[in-house]
């Protein structure tokens, strides 16, 4: 029982063990696959997902959800790439502005006009994709290219096997993990997720917190989009779209309650790593595609349920 108690108090340990188990499976399927180069590849592809899931963690902590994160990331990357000819700095700022703008609109709709987050962000996801499609027809001859330093950021390596994107992801992670625990804003997110009505009665301007939170989520989505464009060295109209449900999965596997009020970003980070390693396992597994799809779904289900069982008090 003491072991269980320990796990309940340190859920991140359970998750890390699950991640190690998956890495063990990978090595068993393909002996010699787990190398420094493997580490590089895994972090390279986990970083954009992890940054995208950071925004998702913030909004899910307050009982919301953002279904526009992937479309915002795609739009930010595409707009950055198609403006690269005006200078790298301007291109990057325009890309980030997309995230801030969409996040602000999401925040206004949800915080001020009381729109249901699911519907608000789903609607914005469609608006962003449609807008991007129209934009792309004007921008088709604008030499879309990923600036060199963004490519280095997304795909470069230092010290032999450390991806450059880790040098961006790690500080973001530290700011969010510490910020959630130590700042008033961070603690308000938990409080609002737990009981927004009580917060309001206690004098908290809930709408302001939500507005800032969704804007932050939009900004983080845009950053993830730029990193991903660097990793792939191209931006197209569907660049980050495959990441939408994995962001939610990474947050849930990471132990953030879908009913809000509890969880942390450190869990999401491991969740993003687990999903990325799972993809590698399935790529190297010699099995028909439908079997792989079943495995992917079943393993995510197993992780989410086993984890909640270990952590539940009963």
């Amino acid at each position, binding site marked *: 029982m003491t072991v269980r108690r320990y796990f309940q108090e340190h859920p991140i340990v359970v998750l890390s063990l699950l991640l190690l188990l998956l890495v063990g499976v990978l090595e068993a399927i393909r002996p*010699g696959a787990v190398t420094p180069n*493997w580490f590089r*590849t895994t972090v390279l592809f986990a970083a954009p997902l992890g940054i995208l899931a950071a925004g998702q963690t913030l909004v899910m902590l307050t009982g919301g959800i953002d279904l526009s994160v992937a479309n915002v990331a795609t739009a930010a990357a595409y707009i950055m790439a198609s403006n690269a000819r005006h200078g790298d700095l301007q291109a990057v700022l325009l890309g980030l502005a997309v995230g801030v703008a969409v996040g602000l609109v999401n925040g206004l709709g949800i915080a001020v006009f009381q729109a249901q987050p699911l519907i608000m962000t789903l609607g914005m996801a469609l608006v962003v994709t449609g807008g991007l499609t129209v934009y792309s027809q004007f921008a088709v*001859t604008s030499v879309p290219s990923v600036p060199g330093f963004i490519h280095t950021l997304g*795909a470069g390596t230092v010290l032999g096997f450390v991806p450059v994107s880790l040098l961006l992801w790690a500080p973001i992670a530290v700011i969010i993990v510490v910020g959630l625990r130590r700042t008033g804003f961070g603690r308000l997110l938990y409080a609002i997720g737990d009981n927004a009505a009580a917060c309001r009665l206690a004098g908290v301007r809930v709408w302001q917190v939500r507005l800032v939170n969704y804007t932050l989520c939009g900004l983080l989505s845009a950053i993830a989009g730029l990193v991903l464009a660097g990793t792939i060295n*191209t931006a197209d109209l*569907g660049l980050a779209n495959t990441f939408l449900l994995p962001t939610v999965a990474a947050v849930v596997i990471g132990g953030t309650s879908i009913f809000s009020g509890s969880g942390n970003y450190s869990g999401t980070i491991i969740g993003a790593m687990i999903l990325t390693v799972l993809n590698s396992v399935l790529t190297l597994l010699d099995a028909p595609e439908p079997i792989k*799809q079943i495995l992917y779904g079943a393993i995510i289900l197993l992780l989410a349920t086993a984890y909640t069982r270990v952590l539940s008090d009963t």
Partner: protein
Amino acid sequence: MGAAVLTFGVVDLLAACGGSSTSGAAKTYKVGVSNTLTGNGWREEMICSIKAQGKASGNVTQVTVANRNGGPAEQIADLRNLISAGVNAIILNPSDRDALNAVIKEAAGKGIVVVAVDQAVSAPEAYVLSNDQVKYGQLGAEWLFKQLKGTGSVVEMRGIDGVPADTDRHQGFTTALANYPGIKIVAQTFTGWSLNPAAQQINDLFSSGKKIDGVWTSGIDATIIDAYQTAKKPFVPTVGADNNKFVGQLVSLKSSGLVGAAVTNPPPVGGAGLAVALDVLAGKSHPKLIKLTPEVWDNTSSAGVSTLQSKYDASLDPYYSVQYAVAPYTTYTKAQLIACQS
């Protein structure tokens, strides 16, 4: 509605008594387009080719595009709306082979010419114009296996499991493979025709230490070449599609040892479909099923290199398909296609 029906009556009458004696210059048409996959560069280029062909033809007054994400139910609703809007021809990229047949029959009953492009429908009233996807898989694979002199380890990077184009391409790939017993498929992956999964898959294969002598892709090609460059690995013969960036890489990286071939899968099947529809409206006949044989542009033959060089456009989007026209059907210029205006 009344006006719409009246228009059909007039068009029918003209078509019936027109024949070869009237010039047809005075006849104008309204065209409807139905597409059910958005945010996809290939599909957008397909729609642009329809608009460009409408403009180039000179007798299309209006192109109405119904474009949203959906399945057969949404597409049936869109097709009904286009029929109500009084169009004379409908160009659609079908979301299902059989499910649209009733509404296609309804359209044909009103004298509307229906052309399914890119993928087939089973309705006997419809014209079908599409790339031969079996040949797409087969021609590219044969080029690759020949390039490897019949022996080696090959990675097959497919699209989406269960989608007709993927199934057809795989069938062609398998047909080619049957003649090359020395070729071993060391990995088969599904990219979902998305860049990000494809990039992770090729990197995973790099770290796995598997020997790779050649890569066949179902169109996510430039991303694979980028991954080889980033990982500083020597290139292996690679087959892709007629995507702008890949076509450019085949030219510019030839001196760095890149050997590869682009197999065409032109989005202008849309514009070609409209050309066929306008012909039919003008009384000319076309076969109900038109299959385009893909071209293979390799960078190992001089003819291939000159085609690749002429098609590559450094000012265009990386995944813009550079097979700008479908001969002998489309008549627009490349500039009209890119302008994308009807």
